[in-house]
């Protein structure tokens, strides 16, 4: 076990944390599979409108990677196939029939997992449609099956605003979690790194076996998987590592022990726009409206995920595949008189240019206003203290903007993802989309091979 104390970064203490109380949500009338949730997937439809599907029936099949598929979280009928610009697939909506009849897959015991070969385990995950939960760095896309990553990281710490409390989620699931870790251990010759918060209490985390446990302390983005990799086993050119979210480790365990495609999802419903901020037990791909229990959504933004990295899905949207959080915050857009001059006792800022910065910290209320217009980057000393990796964001940005791939790689772009720069984007006085530029850089590098 090793400990890391990260001194950079910053937490946003947003209003609307979820109470430690689980509400069971009954099976919604609709569940959705959203191809755009799966980074790197080249989806081909395996169903058409009207088809009858079971839990675990293939919905999307990858055009390039043999055996890679995304399966249905519900039994019922395919009700809608929605497409967007250039006919890109947006969502496949399944009308549930309430039976949750499931395709059955092979069952294992905890002991028999240990005797399986890597090939068998990989095939089992692919076959059951659970492979997409394993993602790889660089590029944060679905892992390539049958490859041997130098390490697998279990992302068991989350420092995003109002992120679900993993201790709470893991309560009563000690056994299962370990079984999931055992499966992952089979997939690599390297180590499985379990990265947990310094104050993690859940026994599932603190007493996990066959893994390297690392404790991290620090503010956001210390909880990001990039930070963990950076300090434990960094990604260099030619390397690749895999990573899995905590709840997905539980789902792996459930698949192996129960022989069914697991559809349960524990999610935190958060934000000041929610009537009851609680944890909900729901389904993968659930409509956000089913989770909000009568909250008034007028003038609100529904985000699947956190305010820093989530997606605006609208009041009629569905929970994204990898998300275990919904955040509802008020929309901004109010124009204020002479905003550059007001003292700002209630204006939230990382800088020291508002009176609020000198008042004692309390939970803040934030809306979606940009609080300024786009400008050239002038102030270049805000990024450094907000990134936890030992990289130089300003110079990395410059390398990407000038399309200098060699420099960008040397400056460590392969170790990063868009999400690691969300705080930089947040704090930039010129309102530069720092994360977006980094993503462009990564796309550029991926394209060039």
């Amino acid at each position, binding site marked *: 076990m090793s400990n890391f104390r990260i001194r950079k970064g910053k937490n946003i203490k947003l209003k609307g944390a979820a109470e430690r109380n689980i509400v069971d949500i009954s099976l919604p009338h609709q569940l959705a599979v959203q191809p755009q949730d799966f980074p790197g997937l080249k989806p081909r439809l395996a169903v058409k409108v009207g088809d009858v599907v079971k839990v675990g029936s293939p919905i999307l099949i990858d055009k390039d990677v043999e055996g890679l598929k995304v399966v249905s979280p519900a039994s019922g009928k395919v009700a809608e196939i929605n497409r967007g610009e250039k006919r890109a697939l947006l969502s496949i909506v399944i009308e549930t029939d309430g039976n949750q009849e499931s395709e059955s897959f092979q069952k294992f015991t905890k002991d028999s997992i240990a005797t399986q070969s890597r090939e068998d385990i990989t095939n089992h995950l692919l076959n059951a449609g659970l492979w997409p939960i394993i993602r790889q760095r660089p590029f944060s896309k679905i892992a390539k099956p049958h490859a041997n990553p130098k390490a697998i990281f279990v992302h068991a710490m989350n420092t995003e605003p109002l992120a679900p409390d993993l201790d709470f989620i893991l309560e009563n699931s000690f056994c299962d979690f370990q079984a999931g870790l055992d499966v992952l251990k089979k997939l690599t010759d390297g180590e499985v790194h379990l990265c947990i918060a310094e104050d993690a209490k859940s026994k599932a985390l603190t007493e996990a076996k066959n893994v390297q446990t690392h404790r991290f302390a620090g503010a956001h983005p210390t909880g990001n998987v990039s930070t963990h990799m950076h300090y434990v086993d960094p990604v260099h050119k030619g390397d690749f590592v895999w990573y899995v979210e905590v709840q997905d480790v539980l789902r792996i365990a459930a698949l192996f022990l129960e022989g069914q495609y697991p559809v349960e999802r524990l999610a935190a419903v958060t934000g000041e726009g929610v009537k009851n901020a609680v944890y909900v037990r729901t389904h993968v791909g659930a409509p956000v409206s089913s989770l909000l229990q009568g909250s008034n959504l007028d003038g609100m933004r529904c985000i699947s995920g956190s305010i820093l990295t989530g997606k605006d899905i609208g009041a009629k949207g569905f929970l994204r595949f990898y998300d275990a959080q919904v955040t509802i*915050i008020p*929309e901004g857009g109010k*124009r204020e008189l002479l905003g550059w001059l007001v003292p700002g006792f209630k204006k939230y800022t990382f800088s020291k240019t508002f009176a609020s910065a000198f008042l004692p910290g309390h939970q803040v209320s934030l809306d979606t*206003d940009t*609080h*300024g217009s*786009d*400008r050239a980057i002038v102030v270049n000393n805000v990024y450094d203290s907000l990134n936890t990796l030992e990289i130089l964001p300003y110079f990395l940005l410059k390398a990407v903007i000038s399309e200098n791939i060699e420099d960008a790689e040397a400056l460590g772009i392969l170790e990063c993802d868009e999400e690691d720069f*969300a705080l930089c984007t947040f704090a930039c*006085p010129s309102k530069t989309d720092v994360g977006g530029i980094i993503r462009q850089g990564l796309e550029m590098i991926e394209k060039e091979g």
Partner: protein
Amino acid sequence: MSFLQKQSKKIEKLFEKGKPLEKFYPFYEALDTFLLTPGNKTKKAPHVRDSVDLKRVMIFVVIALIPCIFMGIYNAGYQIELAKGLTHSLLGCLGLGAWKVLPIIFVAYAAGGFWEALFAVVRKHEINEGFLVTGILYALVLPPTIPLWQVAVGISFGVVIGKEIFGGTGMNILNPALTARAFLFFAYPAQMSGDAVWAAVDGFTQATPLAVVAAAPKGALATSVLAEAGYTFKDIFLGFIPGSIGETSAAACLFGLVFLLVTRVASWRIIAGCALGLTAMSMVFSLNQGAESLAFFSLPAHWHMVMGGFAFGAIFMATDPVSSSATDTGRWIYGFLIGVLVVLIRMVNPAYPEGVMLAILFMNVFAPLIDHFVVQKNIKRRLVRAEGK
């Protein structure tokens, strides 16, 4: 929707695409967002943004300069009354000073603003608030006697050659205000230095403290030379001495310093680096002081700090984020070397006793090189780690 918002919406229509005033949209945008916050919403993650924007950062620098502006106006008037042998009154000095200084500030903003707006219209980008700072910084480093046409020529050079040809705001290598000042210095030396330029009274000459020390005989003690010329530390610190408009008063600069450090608008590393560099270098000289050495050798560091434009330069000019180093280590080195160069230029170059402007411009040029080494160190560490795995 407020009254202002309605009016703004109405006027905006004139500037929309295809409308007669389309080309002048940057003017509309500048005025509109000056009055009201833009009220834009985020389109994707992150869904929330910090309340601060560039406008506020830039305005804060201008606020930090207010003590310097007031002291500059007062002192300009004071020097005139001194030259004419009048008795001093607060209002008299402020009035006389304002009469001299305000037109300079006005012309600096008008001429510079013209170029800024022209480039914004031609290159189709917004008018950047950075100009609010450049314009006032430039006016404050001019002598109060400067002809107004030179003010206009200088800032034109600074904005066009110093900034816009590099690609505009954020791309420039040199500090535009200092580029403008340096251009005037080399183009019109007679009006920019010497003893006759500091008080707006014909035929009156008085040497600045730096010039007094530079002219002192070898081996003389700098502080006693200054005392003989009538300069006390207190006068120099407070700024009742001849010099450029805004930079004579180290006391006013200190107010600005406190404001900039509390609001963290300026990099404290650069300012601390400047002070350290200056102290170190003046100590080196004072250790080597002898009977044959220049009087400057004996000038203690705290005198160096309050004389000439050092305080103003280190606090307001060296800290320009665009033209300074962009790494924390680099900021220390960059600041330190400015301090060293200031002392070096003051002592070694007898023709030009004021070294701050050239020291900062020189280090502006070297800032990317300093950063290069810091960045290479970062890259190397990654390579070492990759090989050591």
